[in-house]
């Protein structure tokens, strides 16, 4: 581009580097802090930011291991963090599976078939996406509370209720998968149909294997979406053993019972794997963020 560079250019580059480094250190401050806090003995700030002495007590509690304190008493884990993590993963896996199942076929219809009102259905799905679930919380609670009085495993405080509540939010996934189907030439399926395959066989044996990468991405997005979801889970889950991480984590920081150090260890333990999965899914989904909506 510009070939003639004046003297100020060099200073500007240096200033830009310094500015970026300063900004990044400010943004990374919470992460470094939380790591330091998780290794610091006790639950309260002691005056220095870097712990003078490394203690693994919070990590032990986060992993569900009791330990003996200096005064000889037995300290037991305040909350079942690993159980919450397991609940989150279980619910997210099943609901992501259902979401992919429901959205692949719908996306196929939108991408390959002609039917009345197709355009309107697509717009309707997009519109639906714009109304956040928070607004329907009262109805969701009341529906599952009601269902629970007849079918116990579908009531409030059951994981299946939460899975069902998550499984319906597929509008965005349908759009994403349809976009991918559109890039696959329809001729391949037509060839299969000419050879005597039915629509369903062409979809199952020809298109689906080719769409594997996008199904993986959608699965991961749905998975992460379910793991970080807070409002619906906070309404539907109550008992401590039933909670997901998103709902349980806040119990660490009550003013009366402030477990800052224990929270730090639990946050890293549960946050790190989710972050890595998210970064991986972003890498797979080239340029997908523009279509990727917003984060909860």
């Amino acid at each position, binding site marked *: 581009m510009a070939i003639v560079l004046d003297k100020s250019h060099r200073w*500007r580059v240096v200033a*830009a*580097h310094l*500015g*970026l480094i300063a900004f*990044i250190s400010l943004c990374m401050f*919470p*992460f470094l*802090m939380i790591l330091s*806090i998780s290794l610091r003995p006790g639950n*309260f*700030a002691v005056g220095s*930011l870097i712990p003078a002495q490394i203690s693994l007590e919070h990590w032990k509690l986060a992993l569900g291991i009791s330990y003996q304190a200096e005064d000889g008493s037995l300290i037991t884990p305040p909350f079942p963090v690993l159980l919450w993590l397991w609940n989150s993963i279980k619910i997210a896996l099943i609901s992501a599976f*259902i979401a992919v*199942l429901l959205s692949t076929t*719908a*996306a*196929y219809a939108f991408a390959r*078939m002609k*039917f009345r009102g197709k355009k309107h*259905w697509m717009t309707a799905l997009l*519109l*639906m996406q*714009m*109304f*956040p*679930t*928070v*607004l*329907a919380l*009262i*109805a*969701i609670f*009341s529906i599952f509370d*009601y269902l629970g009085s007849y079918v116990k495993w579908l009531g409030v405080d059951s994981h299946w209720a939460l899975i069902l*509540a998550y*499984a*319906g*939010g597929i509008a965005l996934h349908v759009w994403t998968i349809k976009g991918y189907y559109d890039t696959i030439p329809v001729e391949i399926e037509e060839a299969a149909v000419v050879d005597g395959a039915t629509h369903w066989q062409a979809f199952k044996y020809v298109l689906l294997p080719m769409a594997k990468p996008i199904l993986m991405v959608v699965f991961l997005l749905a998975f992460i979406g379910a793991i970080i979801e*807070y409002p619906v889970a*906070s*309404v539907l889950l109550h008992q401590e053993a039933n909670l997901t*991480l998103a709902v349980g*984590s*806040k119990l*660490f920081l009550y003013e009366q019972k*402030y477990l*800052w150090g224990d929270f*730090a260890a639990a*946050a890293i333990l*549960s946050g790190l794997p*989710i*972050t890595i999965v*998210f970064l991986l899914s972003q890498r797979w989904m080239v340029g997908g*963020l*523009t279509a990727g*909506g*917003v*984060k*909860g």
Partner: protein
Amino acid sequence: MNDRLTKWIGPALLALVALSGLYLVFMLYVSGQTVVAGVGLFVVALMVYVYTAPGAYSYRYLFPGVAGALIFVVFPMVYTIAIGFTNYSSKNLLEFDRATKYLLEETYQTEGQTFATTIHREGSEYRLKLDNEDVALSFVTTPLALKKAERVVVQATPTGSAEVALGEPLELRDIIPLRNMLKEVIVKLPDGLELTMSGLREFAPVKKLYSKNPDGSLTNVQTGQIIKPNFKTGFYETAQGDQLAPGFKVGIGFDNFRRVLGDESIQQPFLRIFAWNVTFSFMSVLLTAAVGMFLAVLLNWEAIAGRNMYRTFLFLPYAVPGFISILVFKGLFNNNFGEINLILDQLIGFKPPWFSDPTLAKVMILIVNTWLGYPYMMVLCQGLIKSIPADLYEASALAGAGPLTNFFKITMPLILKPLMPLLISSFAFNFNNFVLISLLTNGRPDFLDTKIPAGETDILVSYTYRIAFGDSGQQFGLAAAISTVIFVMVAILSIINLRLTKVNQQEAR
């Protein structure tokens, strides 16, 4: 053989799903949820049609997804709006039928005639022996398991007529563990009199408290008072207008909306919350977009080495789950124990009360939200900047323009237009950014002058949540009405957004 089998799997599955659907519909209908049952029946019928009629072939692929979205996303939203027109709350929780049934099952123990009761073990079962000394009558029941606290009606016969060898009566300490089961036992005497437990060693006759009259009113048998259901208030009421719990759910028209707009004690906080809600979302979009755009431009500068590494670090706040980073900030900002105040105290000797001062709390929320949101804006802007033709910058370099001129005359005007719909989406998202407010401040500090608890940093959704599930008595109807108001606002934003996107697409052609 195998082919024939696969042929049957489809129809069998359909029949199975349809039957279980019909069963659910039937259960709903029986329990009085006629409207919901009707919707369910419609869905089941539609499913059967789609999967059997040859003309509906393409809908077979569509049906599972669309049905899922309709049942779990659209229906709850419509239902929320419907709740907004009722008095549904913790006081008016039940349907009318169930409230009536509840009252009709109320009993009272008549005075006087009590039966001294002893409990005798017989194998693994128990028999009760009831004696009334006043009339010198004595009865013994058939054996009872007393394993579950479930209502059972048991027959008693006079002691003389049946040859029953009773063992020693149970000691008091053995009766106490059986107490909960015994409470549910109704002993029916030969003359039809029903007895229930009135003490650990005592049974007494009970009578139903209310009897139903043909006109739908109930008579209190004990006092003779008549109570009538009032379908305006959703309560059974005495002639004096005293309300009896439990109340029931009734439609109350626009009353909830009138309360939001007219009742001073709700309208005042509502308007203040609305004002902060708009400020909050607007400032969030402005700050995240400004920071994100600036970083995007900087990272687009080829003279900077290691841009990929910078980008990865800058993206990180977006990758961490929101509920964790928000709670981390909650702890870091803590007034007394937080690390941020620890540093500030050492630097300037002052600990700002981030959570108790309204203005500081709002500043904190904006700082945290900017941190959470700038990476998204940065990535968006980067994509848009890439599509700007390079020759524009070459031309401006020839004309001797500096980087500032480039930014304000070329980059910003060119990316602002395609960015606009995304900014509006971001506004709509932040307008309902419940997770941030709920986890960071939970709306606090609270206003001091409101009847229903409301906070300085509450936004409309978190306020709604507090009304429905928080500290003010589960007023679902009122909360649903406010949700409906938010629905309308989101709908308006969405329509503007769709229009803008369409205009952009048309211009791009």
